[in-house]
């Protein structure tokens, strides 16, 4: 058996490698995506003070600490049976919207975007942010840097620190904003809306007006018919911070809709001996291996999944873009993995609009940002949509509020099975007997996972044009025929 390894994969957060085995004919026999790391937060959370969990669990991921911080803080609201003042909820969501603006911007321009903007076959040296800057112009590049910087500043003002914020507590937040800061946030939000609109135009000009790219997005190699999962508000619109979890089947029909506390009735996780990551699936359907379709419990999360499970967006400009996307791609649900890049930009616009709405809400100036819990703590579940998908925290405490058990289903993990399938399918479609394994070919395989914006380990965002997940290819006799 011939084996190809891609090690380490670049332009993703964290570590990982891909192993591709070829059969005697030189066709792909099987592909494995491996995560080489574990830290064991579920175990060492035991014995910690519940209220320390927002700061402890965000050390799972320094790229999306805000997601863990808020999922954990919401879990504490449930554990302590406390309802935070409305202003506190709005301040949390304001920080979260600003965070989404920075994170989606990073992914589109630095991680995922270069494939499209530069083209998958562009030389490695150009397939990165610097290449993107050269192509889209310095003005836009400046706007990218400014958007990230100014929104990090918002996170710092609200959360206390730009990386690993500290403001989340059961029953509210530790600090609010003064009048001057609110004015600044309003300006930054206004700019973010314009920036998001501009980004959608860039996508339109560079990707949608290029027939080859559209053909690639909709090609079978990058398509999987799966279930989808995401949070929705009371009107079934996309929400990042709060709501019910909705699941749709591959035909787009609602399969389930449940409150966070009931997640164990719907989600289970499968373990494989060759990787440290677990594979979540829909419990009622069961684990039937790395397969798509209605009979497989594999589901997907992240931007495209969120749009697929929702009936629309909660803000007007994003709603228009949402309708345009589905009209262009032939209705709901969209199964083309690469459409995640487009969905991410629709969400960028929603995040910016939501940030603008919240920044103008007079209630955020309220000094009432804490409710002091009085009930005995016991158990709770908190769910947010991290940029990379549905993120679940679940803690049980003793009567002192000391953690007895913690369970975490991290966003990227939600796509772990699909990720394996996507890489395998692209490899099968692209690697052919006798065809040389070129840089561009391997990049097209990587393009199968990059739309998920994976955050394995949940570690670091990487700069573009590189492959952080190494690919190794082995022939049918076990000889290494390609290595990074």
């Amino acid at each position, binding site marked *: 058996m011939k084996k190809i390894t891609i090690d380490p994969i670049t332009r993703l957060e964290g570590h990982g490698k891909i192993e591709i085995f070829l059969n005697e004919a030189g066709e792909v026999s099987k592909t494995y995506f491996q995560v080489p790391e574990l830290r064991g937060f579920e175990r060492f959370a035991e014995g910690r003070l519940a209220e320390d969990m927002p700061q402890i669990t965000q050390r799972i991921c320094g*790229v999306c600490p805000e997601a863990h911080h808020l999922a954990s803080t919401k879990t504490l609201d449930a554990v302590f049976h406390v309802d935070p003042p409305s202003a506190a909820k709005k301040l949390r969501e304001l920080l979260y919207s600003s965070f989404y603006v920075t994170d989606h911007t990073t992914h589109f321009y630095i991680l995922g975007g270069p494939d499209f903007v530069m083209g998958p076959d562009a030389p490695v040296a150009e397939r990165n942010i610097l290449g993107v800057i050269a192509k889209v112009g310095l003005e836009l590049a400046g706007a990218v840097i400014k958007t990230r910087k100014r929104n990090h500043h918002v996170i710092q003002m609200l959360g206390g620190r730009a990386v690993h914020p500290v403001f989340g507590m059961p029953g509210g937040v530790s600090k609010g904003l003064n009048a001057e800061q609110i004015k600044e946030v309003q300006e930054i939000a206004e700019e973010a809306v314009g920036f998001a609109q501009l980004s959608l135009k860039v996508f339109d000009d560079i990707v949608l007006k290029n027939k080859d790219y559209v053909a690639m997005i909709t090609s079978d190699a990058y398509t999987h018919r799966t279930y989808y999962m995401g949070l929705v508000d009371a009107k079934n619109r996309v929400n990042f911070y709060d709501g019910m979890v909705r699941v749709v089947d591959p035909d787009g029909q609602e399969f389930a809709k449940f409150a966070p506390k009931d997640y164990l009735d719907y989600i289970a996780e499968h373990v494989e001996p060759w990787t440290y990551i677990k594979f979540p699936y829909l419990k009622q359907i069961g684990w039937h291996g790395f397969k798509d379709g209605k009979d497989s419990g594999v589901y997907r999360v992240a931007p495209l999944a969120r749009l697929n499970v929702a009936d629309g967006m909660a803000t007007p400009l994003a709603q228009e873009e949402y309708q345009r996307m589905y009209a262009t791609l032939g209705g709901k649900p969209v199964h083309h993995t690469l459409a995640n890049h487009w969905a991410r930009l629709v969400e960028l616009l929603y995040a910016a609009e939501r940030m603008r709405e919240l920044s103008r809400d007079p209630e955020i100036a309220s000094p009432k940002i804490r409710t002091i819990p009085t009930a005995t703590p016991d158990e709770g579940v908190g769910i947010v949509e991290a940029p990379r998908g549905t993120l679940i925290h679940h803690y049980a405490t003793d009567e002192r509020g000391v953690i007895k058990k913690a369970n975490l289903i991290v966003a990227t993990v939600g796509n772990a099975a699909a990720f394996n399938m996507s890489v395998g399918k692209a490899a099968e479609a692209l690697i052919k007997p006798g065809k040389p394994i070129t840089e561009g070919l391997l990049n097209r395989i990587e393009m199968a996972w990059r739309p998920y914006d994976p955050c394995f380990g949940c570690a670091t965002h990487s700069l573009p044009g590189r492959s952080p997940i190494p690919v190794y290819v082995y022939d049918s006799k076990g000889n290494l025929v390609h290595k990074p």
Partner: protein
Amino acid sequence: MAKLKVAFYWAASCGGCEIAQLEIGEKILKVAEVADIVFWPVAIDAKYKDVEAMADGSIDVCLFNGAIRNSEQEHLAHMLRKKSKVMIAYGSCAYEGGVPGLANMFDRASIFERVYHETPSTNNKHKVFPEPSHKVHEGVLCIPEFNDTVKTLRQTVDVDYIIPGCPPEEKTTWLALTALIEGKLPPKGTVITDNVKAVCDDCPRKRDVKKVKKVYRTYEIITDPEICLLEQGLLCAGVATRGGCGAPCPQANMPCTGCYGPVEGAIDQGAHFISAMASVIDSKDPDEIQKIIDDIHDPVGTVYRYSLPDSLLRRARIQ
């Protein structure tokens, strides 16, 4: 002058250190003027084998973040040490083990048991656990070996300097980079910050007489924004933590959790913090003292949040 050759590496960490390195923003251009990055898995395409091929000592500076949790990280730490003239532990995890170091309260078997078997969403009746080398139908798949104990970088290889923080604040990173760029490196072993005293020296809150009759949990009280948090009964680690961060957490009404590590001269941050706590307890009555300290429910997570592997205790003994 030849450009400095710089390498970055991440081990058991969260990626926050990489974000912190990018946070220096436009100043990165100044770094690019004087330095070539020869290895940075997050950003550039050089692979492990490229590092292996480099001559010993050919990297001028290696900034290493993350704790040593598995066999691969241990291997890379040794390799990068050999190739680098200067080895810097960047951030809490490399320096002291960091938050992942709290896993030293447990061991591999109990961590695997929890993560891969006992968690309520996991369906694994046959107790399938990840294996360093696993034979599949097509061949053999390998992943690094998960160690029993988290180690710091200093417990693994010789370290020249330390940049503390979880993650280091922008100004701390820049202070260290400036020293490197200007070739004005401090004596070996220096922890690089602009304040070698405690976080209290950075903190604008007013300190009076630290006397505490009751220890509070953060969610139990709304604190006075002007007064020292420790004096208000919160277990703020600022008194036992090296300064230089600018005290952002106390300014956001939350106690310092100690991420800059021990103050200069203190061997064990937790022991120092405990002795500071003892001195503020306002009682001479053993029963009353006992009652006050009974409210400290997670001493390890409170005083060794980032430093258990580096502490005198290092890990819990597993029976």
